């Protein structure tokens, strides 16, 4: 970075120069990056750029060597350069860009090109694509006498870079902020919460020289640190508690949110933090936690609207993943390369899909999280159920007659059991599993399991067709289809529905059969259970034979259970016959089966679907009935579960089963098996419906690497390594933005050729190197920044400084800005004393009017939380994408729909209405006032007490006077009956308290209340 070209430095300086009133750049100060590259990019690269597919005349102008070799550019000799000749050509056939492109260069632009070639046609690589190099620290020897005192100002190297720039501009740093400002600033920045007056006073009173350092260390160890910084990361992860789009149903993603909090509190190094989130599933021996971390890229939206093409929206989610990866780890806008080669940054259309391919080989299951509390409860219930079941025989009614009751009971049980066996055995059918010879489908992959069942994986569509063939081992009179649960399937299966319909649902529209080329007719169909989800249609077994794809069989509502369908053949098929079965799954959502098994029987008498579990039916149907002890006790166990005599005794068992809590789930990535990779294609114009040639996974060519990543794990490792020139810069810039309100590169999330250059390029690189060398520790990075003198500056600004540097680009003062949306509420929660410390777990519903979510699809209710969940930190608020929590949205909170690298910081009347009139805040104002009345005596003391809870610093006398005067005036109105105390202050409020509530509300509405000073 020492070699940073003069041009780039010039560029970096140009904005402040302008704003600081210095003369503008001289007209002959040409910069490749600023003047030439955008021009070439805009007018030439489309046909002569990185995109090989659209390259004309085999000429590329984005690389100097190629441009010179081709003769387009002859450095120093514009008149000999083909490029100049062509752009100046009068002849329409010769002129570039071609007249048809309707893209003529202006005379000024032509002149720029000519002058640039004349000056040697210097190409300059974009600074951000060069690895950062640690710059030397600025020295301050030989300062003018009146400036000499500033040499002692720096507290750490950050300050040297800042000071150098300030002195060069003829400015000096601001004084250190007062201690109340510092303590509030640190609490808000590091924890996202204001200090209590006691905490603030403790710091102010701490006269040790290392008081500040110790405060920083203590805050970095607070569990609230992770909550504060997780929210910023969740903006990037586009975290939400709902799926987005039309239906916007709830999803369970909070285990991922909790993972982020824990990872930040543990200071998981950023490289590992990256690898686990992008590819934790692929780490050897991946832990549950590492798999939960892969939820990062599962935060994309899921469209559950009826009738969508699920693969189309999977494609959009993937596009979002590439864009998000680009923003978070590369600081690059990759989005445009989805449709065509990037016009400015060196990412070709093919590069884009190579990058996409690296992220495109994962399945997207729900992971059950073994929450220890839930696991323990489940085990406890299971033990209890086992105990109660073992006691069932002792509750069987005894037979009438003589003898000890236990003997009569046992005898009765054995007698009834034998009767049951006798009754069931003739009805039991001996089925033989059909093992498939071939398995074909339109898309999903079918795989035979050892038990003869078939498991489906890979992608599914709204119209899946399975074609199976079997060789019959014996004569067949009927076929049986078992639909089977499997923990790998949504909701445990048996179906694969994952959106719109019930999770784990299936919809079997038709079954048809041929044997040796001839259609096979069925005479009847039966099922053990049938119900469809969505719609009023029947789920009769016969639907699968009626030739109408819109009717079918499903077992909706009984997910994770096995059921069966029996089809009787009109004519028996002989042993040895070839049987082809075609299963059609056609619904307005993708709903093919996940696990199933076919069997046949030679039994006569029109077998029908049985309610018995197949294992039991197998045993009952065995001829002759030779059961070993284990088999016999299995039959007996089953009998105990169905015996009418025990119906009453089983009731507590059924009740316990209903209490069995489900394990929480979370959304994860799971890399596909090596033998079933998902191919990636280049999509013409970025359109889902226009796939072209297949592309191999890989990095964009600009990031040449000795060991180019070939899969997601390798990508993750590359992204968070010193081989990626951008990541450390992008990361430190993000931290800088969080702590200073704006990044050193202001376009957070874009470091490409079109980005704003850094205000302090050497500082950015120094921090980037420091970050990597300190083992990617985010806490150390934050400590480094907040302990700088630059950070500790006072934020007040004189008119003169404001005029010279309105945006504080030069950092001649501390930054002052309105806190993020969630902090607005968290500040008031903490000030009121109602803030709950509870961490983690499912999201909660702070008070909000129903009319907010009523606007969303389906008139969604907002089930307001009660008790402590009402007062949890805002990070835990349920985030609904199509109707975001209004009190956050109004303060520029994100919707979770796209990766947010930079929130807006607006200042609007609707914010005023929220803070003034939202019942949520009025409730907090009441709590604050009630506490004030209880904690302090005397009006000035009460006003000061509330003031400090909200604003931290002690009030000035005139401020107190204004507040006390207000309180008294309102009290008079209340006492006069002009205002009603109980309406303002709550049912038990008197005039005095109500007036304090009004005063608390005023304090909570001060600009300072929601400002990080």
């Amino acid at each position, binding site marked *: 970075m020492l070699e940073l070209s003069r041009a780039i430095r010039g560029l970096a300086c*140009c*904005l402040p120069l*302008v704003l600081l009133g210095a003369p503008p750049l001289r007209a002959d100060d040409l910069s490749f990056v*600023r003047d030439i590259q955008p021009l070439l990019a805009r007018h030439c690269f489309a046909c002569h750029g990185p995109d090989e597919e659209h390259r004309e005349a085999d000429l590329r102008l984005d690389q100097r060597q190629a441009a010179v070799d081709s003769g387009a550019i002859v450095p120093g000799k514009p008149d000999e350069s083909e490029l100049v000749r062509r752009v100046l050509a009068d002849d329409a056939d010769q002129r570039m860009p071609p007249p048809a492109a309707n893209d003529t260069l202006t005379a000024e632009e032509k002149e720029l090109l000519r002058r640039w070639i004349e000056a040697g046609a210097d190409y300059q690589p974009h600074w951000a694509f060069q690895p950062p190099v640690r710059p030397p620290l600025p020295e301050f020897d030989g300062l003018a006498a009146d400036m000499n005192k500033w040499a002692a100002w720096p507290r750490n190297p950050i300050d040297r870079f800042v000071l150098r720039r300030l002195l060069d501009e003829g400015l000096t740093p601001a004084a250190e902020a007062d201690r109340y400002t510092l303590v509030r600033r640190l609490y808000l920045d590091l924890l996202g919460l204001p200090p209590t007056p006691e905490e603030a006073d403790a710091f102010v009173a701490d006269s040790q020289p290392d008081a500040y350092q110790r405060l920083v260390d203590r805050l970095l160890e607070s569990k609230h640190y992770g909550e504060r910084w997780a929210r910023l990361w969740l903006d990037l992860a586009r975290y939400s508690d709902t799926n987005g*789009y*039309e239906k916007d149903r709830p999803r369970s993603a909070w285990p991922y949110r909790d993972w982020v909090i824990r990872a930040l509190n543990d200071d998981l190094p950023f490289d590992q933090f990256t690898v686990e989130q992008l590819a934790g599933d692929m780490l050897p021996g991946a832990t549950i936690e590492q798999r939960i971390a892969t939820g990062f890229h599962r935060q994309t939206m899921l*469209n559950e*609207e009826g*009738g969508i093409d699920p693969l189309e929206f999977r494609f*959009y989610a993937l596009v979002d993943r590439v864009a998000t990866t680009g923003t978070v780890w590369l600081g690059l*806008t990759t989005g*445009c390369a989805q449709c065509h080669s990037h016009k400015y940054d060196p990412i070709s259309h093919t590069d884009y899909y190579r990058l996409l391919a690296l992220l495109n080989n994962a399945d997207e299951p729900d992971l059950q999280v073994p929450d220890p509390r839930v696991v323990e409860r489940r085990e406890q219930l299971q033990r209890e159920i086992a105990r109660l079941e073992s006691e069932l025989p002792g509750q069987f009614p005894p037979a009438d007659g003589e003898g000890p009751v236990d003997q009569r009971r046992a005898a009765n049980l054995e007698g009834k059991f034998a009767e049951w066996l006798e009754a069931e055995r003739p009805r039991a059918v001996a089925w033989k599993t059909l093992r498939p010879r071939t398995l074909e489908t339109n898309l999903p992959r079918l795989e035979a399991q050892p038990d003869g069942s078939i498991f489906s994986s890979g992608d599914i569509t709204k119209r899946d067709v399975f074609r199976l063939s079997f060789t019959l081992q014996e004569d067949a009179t009927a076929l049986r289809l078992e639909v089977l649960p499997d923990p790998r399937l949504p909701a445990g299966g048996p179906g694969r529905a994952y959106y719109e319909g019930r999770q784990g649902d299936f*919809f079997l529209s038709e079954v048809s059969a041929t044997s040796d080329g001839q259609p096979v007719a069925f005479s009847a169909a039966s099922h053990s259970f049938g119900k469809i989800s969505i719609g009023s*249609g029947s789920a009769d077994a016969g*639907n699968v034979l009626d030739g109408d794809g*819109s009717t*079918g069989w499903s077992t909706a509502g009984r997910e994770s259970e096995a059921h069966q369908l029996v089809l009787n053949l009109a004519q028996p098929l002989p042993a040895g016959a070839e049987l082809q079965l075609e299963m059609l799954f*056609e619904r*307005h959502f993708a709903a093919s089966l996940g696990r199933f098994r076919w069997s046949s029987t030679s039994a006569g008498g029109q077998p029908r679907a049985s309610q018995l579990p197949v294992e039991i039916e197998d045993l009952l149907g065995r001829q002759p009935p030779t059961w070993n002890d284990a088999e016999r006790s299995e039959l007996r166990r089953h009998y105990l579960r169905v015996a009418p005599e025990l119906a009453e005794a089983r009731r507590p068992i059924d009740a316990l089963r209903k209490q069995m809590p489900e394990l929480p789930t979370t959304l994860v990535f799971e890399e596909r098996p090596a033998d079933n990779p998902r191919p990636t294609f280049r999509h013409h114009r970025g359109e889902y*419906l226009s796939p072209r040639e297949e592309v191999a996974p890989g990095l964009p060519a600009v990031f040449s690497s000795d060991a180019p990543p070939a899969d997601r794990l390798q990508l993750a490792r590359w992204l968070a390594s010193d081989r990626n020139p951008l990541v450390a810069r992008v990361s430190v810039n993000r931290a800088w933005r969080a702590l200073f309100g704006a990044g050193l590169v202001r*376009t957070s*999330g874009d470091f490409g050729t*079109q*980005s704003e250059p850094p205000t302090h390029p050497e500082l950015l690189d120094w921090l980037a190197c420091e970050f990597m060398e300190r083992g990617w520790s985010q806490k150390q990075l934050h400590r480094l920044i907040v302990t700088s003198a630059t950070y500790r500056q006072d*934020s007040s*600004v*004189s*008119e003169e400084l*404001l005029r010279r540097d*309105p*945006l504080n680009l030069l950092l001649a003062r501390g930054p*002052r800005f309105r806190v993020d949306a969630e902090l607005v509420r968290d500040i008031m929660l903490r000030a009121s004393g109602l803030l709950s410390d509870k961490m983690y777990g499912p999201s909660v519903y702070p008070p909000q*009017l129903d*009319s907010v979510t009523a*606007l*969303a*699809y*389906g008139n969604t209710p907002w089930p307001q939380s009660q008790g402590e969940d009402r007062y949890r930190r805002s990070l835990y608020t349920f985030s609904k994408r*199509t109707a*975001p929590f*209004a009190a956050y*949205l109004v303060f*520029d909170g994100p919707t979770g*729909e796209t990766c947010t690298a930079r929130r807006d910081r607006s*200042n*609007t009347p609707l914010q*005023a*209405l929220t803070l*003034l009139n939202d*019942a949520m805040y009025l409730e907090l104002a009441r709590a604050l006032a009630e506490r004030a009345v209880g904690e302090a005596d005397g009006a000035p003391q009460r006003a000061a007490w509330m003031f400090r809870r909200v604003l931290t610093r002690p009030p000035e006398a005139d401020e107190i006077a204004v507040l006390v005067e*207000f309180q008294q005036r309102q009290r008079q109105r209340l006492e006069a009956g*002009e*205002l009603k105390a109980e*309406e*303002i202050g709550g049912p038990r409020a008197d005039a005095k308290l109500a007036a304090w509530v*009004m005063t608390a509300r*005023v304090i909570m509405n*001060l*600009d*300072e209340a929601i400002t990080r000073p």
Partner: protein
Amino acid sequence: MNLHELRLRTRRHFFQDCGIGLGQVALASLLAGQMPAARGLAEEQAAEAAADPQRPTAPRPAHFAAKARRVIYLFMAGAPSQLELFDYKPKLAELEGKPLPPSVIKGQRYAFIQPDAAVLGPRFRFARHGQAGVELSEVLPHLAEVVDELAIIRSMHTDLFNHAPAQLLWNTGSGIPGRPSMGSWLSYGIGSEADDLPSFVVLKSGGSLSGGAAMWSSGFLPSTHQGVPFRDQGDPILHVSNPAGYDTRAQRDSLDVIRGLNQRRLDLVGDPEIATRINAYEMAFRMQARAPELMDFAAEDQATLEMYGAKPGEGGQAFANNCLLARRLAERGVRFIQVYHAGWDHHSDVAGGVKAQCRQTDQAVAALLRDLRQRGMLDDTLVVWGGEFGRTPMVEASAALGRSQGRDHHPQAFTMWLAGGGIRPGVTLGATDELGFHVVERPVHVHDLQATILHCLGIDHRRLTFKFRGLNFRLTGVEEHHPVREILAS
């Protein structure tokens, strides 16, 4: 560089704190000329620079003289059947019950039906109306009376065939949530004439909206420009009423103390954001005063109420009430008023469904046009009517879903109309084939219509851009699109 931030702050700084008498254009060109990132944005900067620093939604000059000063967009969510309303296809009656040939269907995907579904004939009679003899369905008797005001486009087409994405495409130019909506673009581009109401208001009636809040999001534009949905329960604007127990004086007293203490702080620390906040609180107070008057229909005469069929507080008349409210918002200078009416998604019984929706909407729509005309506002108010896509010539029936005699989503061809400011009345543009399946004459894409709406407001859609993450974004996307010249008033 965060351009907006720069602009806003610099403006605040120059105008308010420095009081430099810099010419606005000079400032804009200074910024535009010296900042690499500002290239191509000179015009927007000029517009921004002209604004009052304390009012980011203050009116700003457009690119050229505007014919319309505001938009009322009647968004018929769910997608009304053009075949039952505007695009009469007797051939469908002839072919009823037979499947369309695969050569017509091509690769089109459908939401619910299979491509070989049979044809369904038009469910209603059509007749010619107005001076131009425009063919309209019998279920639009009121619209028929004002049909000469309309420019009808029978050749609309879109890219998306699911509700949420297609509604988002209409509102934001992209099917994926996250982009700024049309109303936000307008607020950003030319501001608003209202200083006590939001610049972009969203009204809603009927069923659920598929696209959600993303349809009025400001996306990456400054969030000042986001649409404000009016609620149909409680306060129309969230928290616009004083809390229980607070009268106007109590609110004013509170605001005075807040203002005084904020001013004190401003004097001390000099942060111009404090001045902005003081101003925001004052505008909030004005909004509080304005809202009750806005919502109170008492000032409307009986004839007007009857013309719309408006009955305040009656849910069944919500659309009619919203149409009247839209006019009142238009009168008060709101720039973009979006009136959603959901309930047109007739997968089953398209005849009954369309008839029912027309009963709820036809009279009020016609009344709105009449009312605007009578008040002399139609000339500078652009009214747009349309859904997110059309409906299939084929029938939808499904035993599982209990559907029959319906129509599925059809993105290839549908009808919309525009009227008022900037629009040439009495035009019917474009045509579909005899099956109503494909556009055969003058196709108009969503982005073309968006370009047309912006054009009526004096905006060149190619030049209303915002730089975000290194790219210049615009409402109408990267492909080439044009305003529909044929329907523009000369």
